[in-house]
């Protein structure tokens, strides 16, 4: 793991967690936090979603599921979870916590509770970060 200076959180509490290219299309990677893993998903349209990596059913790791549309299917018992709001698709009932995540010029930002100081990244970022961009939260 590489620790770089530009991984510090900004004033709004957004943490740089990596680059878009680090997550495969229709795939997921996890961000480890002291309170458990957060799964970060990327779909076909390069939309990014962050959810707690625990299925509301039996805590299966959603990051290991198959991603389709804006949904992921849990690998343990095939519950289908909506990535936008964390709700289970009917007829199953349940909800998993979602986290605000942003994609700015190919860089991913995540906001987690507890205002942590920094994240160590798996792959160092060599792309400069633009001052403004589209937000998805």
């Amino acid at each position, binding site marked *: 793991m590489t620790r770089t200076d530009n991984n510090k959180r900004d004033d709004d509490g957004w*943490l740089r967690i990596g680059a878009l290219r680090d997550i495969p299309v229709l795939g997921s990677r996890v*961000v*480890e936090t002291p309170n458990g893993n957060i799964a970060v998903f990327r779909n076909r349209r390069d939309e990014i979603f962050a959810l707690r990596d625990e299925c509301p059913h039996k805590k299966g790791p959603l990051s290991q599921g198959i991603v389709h549309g804006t949904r992921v299917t849990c690998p343990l018992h095939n519950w289908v979870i909506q990535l936008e709001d964390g709700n289970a698709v009917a*007829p199953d009932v349940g909800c998993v916590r979602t986290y605000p995540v942003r994609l700015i010029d190919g860089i991913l930002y995540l906001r987690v509770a507890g205002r942590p100081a920094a994240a160590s990244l798996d792959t160092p970022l060599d792309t400069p970060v633009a001052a403004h961009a589209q937000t998805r939260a």
Partner: protein
Amino acid sequence: MPDAAFDDGAKPRLVMIGNGMAGVRTLEELLKIAPDLYDITVFGSEPHGNYNRILLSPVLAGEKTIDEIMLNGTDWYAENGIVLHTGKTVTKIDRKARRVIADDGTEAAYDRLLIATGSAPLILPIPGVDLTGVITFRDIHDVDRMIDAAQTHKTAVVIGGGLLGLEAANGLMKQGMNVTVVHLTETLMERQLDREAGLLLRKSLEEKGMAFKMPAETEAILGDARVRAVRFKDGTEAAADIVVMAIGIRPNIELAKNAGIHCERGIVVNDHLQTYDPAVYAIGECVQHRKQTYGLVAPLFEQSKVCANHLAEFSSTLYLGSTTSTKLKVTGIDLFSAGDFTGDDTTEEIVLRDPGQNTYKKLILKDGRIKGAVLYGDTMDGAWYFQLMRDGTDVSDFRSRLMFGRAHLGDSGHGADDQTAAMDDSTEICGCNGVCKGEIVKAITGQKLFTLDAVRAHTKASSSCGSCTGLVEQILASTVGGDYAPTPKEKPVCACTDYTHDEVRRAIREQNLKSIPVVLDYLNWKTPDGCAACRPALNYYLLCQWPGAYTDDRQSRFTNERVHANIQKDGTYSVVPRMWGGITSPKELRAIADVAEQFDIPTVKVTGGQRIDLLGVKKEDLPAVWAGLNKAGMVSGHAYGKALRTVKTCVGSDWCRFGVQDSTGMGIDLEKMSWGSWMPHKFKMAVSGCPRNCAEATIKDFGVVAVESGWELHVGGNGGVKVRATQLLCKVATPEEVKEYCGAFIQLYREDAHYLERTAPWIERVGLGLVKRKVVEDAESRKALHARFLESQKYAQRDPWAEEAHPKSANAPAYRPLATVE
């Protein structure tokens, strides 16, 4: 679509005439796939929402209330933005102006019209049918009148000894009336039953207190203002306070006919349920499709799906007609009938008669296939026979056992209707998901479920191992009445498409489709990138069709196959290294011990397939664990894959005093030949060195049993959910032949079976005859299959562990976290 209404941005208008089960089901299907396509208006003559007409009999018998059989209350229409006119009968369709007009003057314009006017009871053309007390049995109003009459009157005559008549008679009897059933012929329900079953039925009903007058033809209904008696052609009379006319139904076609739409017995429709006017669809009991009319609910639901698809502009499905089955909804009488139950010169029949148990079963066979069935007393296997009949399954292989029911059904799958009916609500039905009978019944009635798939989705019962499927289907059948919608014969791959597995494979092959997005696009998938059910299937089909050319799509693999290990309940993985033929060495065992210690692996277990399982490995440790095992020469055991699992062996002639061949050597050879191959489902083999069969080869997908003169080859066994012994494929003399037959069998399975279909159900579906023809009888075909298998193995036999554990692997990051927050 040429219509202006579809182009100018405004929503097209869909008007439905009739508010019954088939029509509303069509709207439900339509809303599911195209929720915002139409502005919908519904006209219904009855003052209610949509209710389950099949369950009027239990309402009459006092076993259910009207509220319990409502399917869609008025709130459902409101929630879906549907304008509902109840109590209004449409009297005119103006096709030129594209509008309908109701009896109270209400008008509605349409771009698409759906006629779902159902059917009406037939009335005998005899004197007296207008008298008070003459009732038909068709809707809630009729049931109310019968229940009222039963409060104040004593004697009822039911004209018609068919399904409906007997259910009405039973209901009236339950309401306390003395009932006589009048029937024209000598056999009750003669359209569904043969003479013998008809007699048994009559006997049972007589024991319940029902009286019969048959054969008898009614000449007149007598009385002044109110009915007093019924007179027959033979001059005799029967006293009656009420007369229920239940001799049959006829499609309601007058409205369509008056609008100039072509009608024969019913409104004639094509395979899309369109009438001769393409803007006008018709569905349900009012319809005539390929010369057939239908009065049972299951075929109507099949029509609904096709009609909804066409209305939603997905035109890929066709309605090709239905095979129907019947169950009588009279409590305490088990009766099932399907297809042609009389037979002719070209058919054979198998009959089982046991008067002591009051059971009678008859199957009609033609060319080794079931053409019809009549079951009386024990109807437990009705659904199974019906499935075999619809699928056209060749039953020759198990003909001798056919009559005794679904022999391979696991213990948990056994149980007659009586058994599920007698079960306590707290009886566990699905052992995998801990679902009790009460929960299933509650979901079926509360959520208005009609299909096995819907019950699975809502309760999870039967959604894991599937061994309780029979029980769940029985509960479904007994809860919603016999006319629940049985699992369709040709199932689509998943809800993302209407195409079946075979159609998808054919398209891939014939249209040269080479990637998942291309398949989704070409076959007009309903979802942007499929789902967790279809993507792995497509990935497999492409891989199988284009070996070497197709690039495996990692994101369409289930996690186990993506990370080459088995996910466990806590999100850790298990790792099973390959041990050829179950043979290992101190060096390998030392390497296993070393990685277990080095990575704190909590459990080391010997598997049922003679391998060693390391359980509880953290995902990020997987590459390092593999590297450690690779160093000792071990490769992936594919215990996680839809692939060759293990070849189990006994020690054979090397050590055993009974062994007649080198079973271990054969096992190693077979495993070396077939490891790494991706298959529709997991695939297990075993080789036993003598007929004592210590390697349990006869419950494997491919089992080899050595005999003095060579090798017996067995196929299609299963030791899991449903125990099924193998069937003998053939006997061969040399080890080379064993390998060639084995490779050919695997390749046939790979090319023909549906994804996630084990060899056992696959062989039951296609028949052992097909396997014998292609692998045993036709040497050229066998050699070609074997060659194709070896060709595909050239690309498949790469150790995924070595590739993934390589430090420069492109997939290395997949095992590590993206970031760690402190």
